[in-house]
């Protein structure tokens, strides 16, 4: 059991840190949160800089520890978040890398790495959220194409995406997990209509996507026909296993800012609040250790994130909400002012226990797959 990094890892960290110090000041000003085309350009521009500097691959080929260092250093330095590149870099890319044909990898992976194409995730449907395998969007085979009809919902970044990792039903007669396929659908295809949805934070983070007789080449199917559920499980293990590393670092920074703000505005003298912040410090330190533990476990098992991700996601999503509740306590009346930093964060923290599998679903996963409790109602 040790927490020391190897000399190679430390060298990677030092080189990255040096590069970040030079690269970050050259970034253009941050676009406003509502400006999606601006955000797309900004996020892709950052990915291009990473590509040119030789860091673009880090999410895919680097060892879990190297990736941990990358996320820790970029977050600490205040570098941009993956943002619009999220689905491409963290879900679709790794899935295509693991399950795609050589042609598919050649077609889709380089543009993701170079920051040229944005992906979105078309999994959820109005009647298939937690029960994802109940999805009904239908793909009928017609020559070399699938003809896709149905609708998707809560699709993040849909307005600015070039591609969609789309789950469709290719065999309606099969048992529900067996008749699903995984397609790469161009968002520009005729018949795709995107309608932005407004979140409770006021922003347009996600959208509804309507699909009317959309033609998708059969060659865009990743994995075998009707084997999409297995491919999806590969995607989801990436989603839960490693998505939040940078955010833990960010939360620890916010916690330090909270303490300093409390000292400035006098709230620090309130022992109850002060101890609450102390307890949150314990919480986020522990979450960082849990991250290191999971990363070491992944390294030992060959890189694929395990169910440790569900344990982490459960604890982290609630801790994040407690953090921003504490922020509201520090701010006092200001916590009702949307102009204040942290207020939007508090609102958006509500999504963490819902997106990427709700806490209730994660508890089922932990209970059934880790603890071996029987499946039930």
């Amino acid at each position, binding site marked *: 059991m040790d927490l020391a990094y190897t000399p190679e890892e430390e060298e990677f960290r030092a080189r990255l840190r040096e590069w970040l110090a030079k690269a970050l000041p050259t970034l253009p000003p941050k676009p406003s949160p509502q400006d999606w085309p601006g955000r797309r350009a900004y996020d892709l521009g950052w990915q291009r800089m990473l590509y040119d500097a030789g860091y673009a691959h880090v999410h895919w080929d680097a060892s879990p520890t190297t990736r941990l260092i990358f996320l820790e250093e970029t977050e600490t330095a205040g570098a941009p978040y993956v943002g619009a590149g999220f689905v491409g870099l963290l879900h679709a890319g790794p899935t295509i890398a693991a399950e795609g044909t050589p042609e598919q990898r050649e077609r889709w992976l380089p543009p993701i790495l170079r920051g040229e194409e944005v992906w979105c995730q078309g999994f959820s449907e109005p009647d298939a959220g937690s029960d994802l395998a109940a999805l009904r969007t239908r793909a009928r085979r017609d020559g070399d194409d699938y003809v896709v009809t149905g609708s998707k919902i809560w699709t993040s970044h849909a307005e600015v995406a070039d591609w969609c990792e789309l789950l469709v039903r290719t065999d309606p007669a099969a048992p529900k997990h067996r008749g699903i396929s995984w397609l790469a659908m161009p968002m520009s295809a005729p018949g795709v209509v995107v309608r932005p949805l407004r979140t409770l934070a006021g922003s347009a983070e996600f959208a509804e996507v309507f699909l009317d007789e959309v033609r998708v080449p059969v060659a865009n199917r990743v994995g075998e026909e009707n084997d999409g559920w297995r491919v999806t499980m590969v995607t989801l293990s990436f989603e839960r296993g490693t998505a939040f590393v940078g955010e833990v670092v960010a939360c620890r920074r916010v916690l330090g800012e909270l303490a*300093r703000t409390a000292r400035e505005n006098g709230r620090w003298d309130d022992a109850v609040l002060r101890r609450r912040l*102390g*307890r949150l410090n314990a919480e986020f330190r522990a979450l960082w250790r*849990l991250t290191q*533990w999971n990363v070491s476990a992944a390294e030992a098992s060959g890189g694929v994130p395990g169910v440790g991700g569900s344990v982490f996601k459960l604890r982290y999503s609630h801790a994040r909400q407690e953090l921003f509740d504490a922020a509201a306590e520090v701010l006092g009346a200001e916590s009702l002012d949307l102009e204040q930093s942290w207020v939007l964060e508090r609102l958006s923290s509500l999504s963490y226990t819902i997106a990427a599998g709700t806490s209730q679903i994660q508890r*089922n996963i932990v209970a059934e797959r880790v603890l*071996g409790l029987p499946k039930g109602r």
Partner: protein
Amino acid sequence: MRFQLTGDQLALRDGVRAVLARRFGGEALRAAVDDPRLDRALWRELGAAGFFSLRVPEARGGVGLGLPEAVLVFEEAGRVLLPGPLLATHLAADVVPGAAEGEVVVADVDPGGLVEWLEEADVVRGDATGAVALKSVDPLTPLHRAPGAHARAADPVAVLLTAAEQLGTATRVCELAVQHARAREQFGQPIGAFQAVKHLCAQMLVRAETARAAVYAAAVTADPVDIAAARLLADEAAERGARDCVQVHGGMGFTWECEVQLHLKRAWVRARRGGGGAESEELLAVDLLA
């Protein structure tokens, strides 16, 4: 970074687990509840197995291992509710002659003013004059209160090893709950198939595993702030876990016979060591301004 147990550490843990299962299994536990006296023979066996001298350097006749190994051993002791002033004797191993071998039983006046096992001890460290016996909530831990003791900062090593014991309890009560939830049937199926029960168990595991990462990391760094964090997480995992375990056991969980009550009560005793968690919270709060 290889933040996983090494082969030697796994072997140590399994070895200690095997010794404790043989020497302090379920029947011994129940017998101890009926007759809560210190088992001197067991104490000497622990001494011979290196339990107390684990961190004493080899040059001074100890085992020469470090904090991570001590944490693993105390976790196992916590799992089986091993009674006696383990921590006080372990901490005295290099100071009080005979403690390392388990020949001499040592009690300690805790910074919060509590003394465990005062009457059975051969040596008492700290000022226990005028100590008054409490009717201890934990049938396996006799307690005194020392009025003369002044609150002082807790020893980080004592805090960490207590957290390790709490981790043992947190893990054990999760296992007990899961075993029961698999076996007990109501409405024609195991209660573990009901989500309300399943989710209690899942949360027990989440708390235990988060605490484990914190406790093991603190053992590696020996940093007082890491130790304070580990303590808060481990106390929570043990206390909440034991409560939830009582709940999963239903009426049986509220009986004296059910092992779970012993875990809950021991968790409460340990959570008071060093005066409770407030000191750790304050330390962690100040750390935020550093």
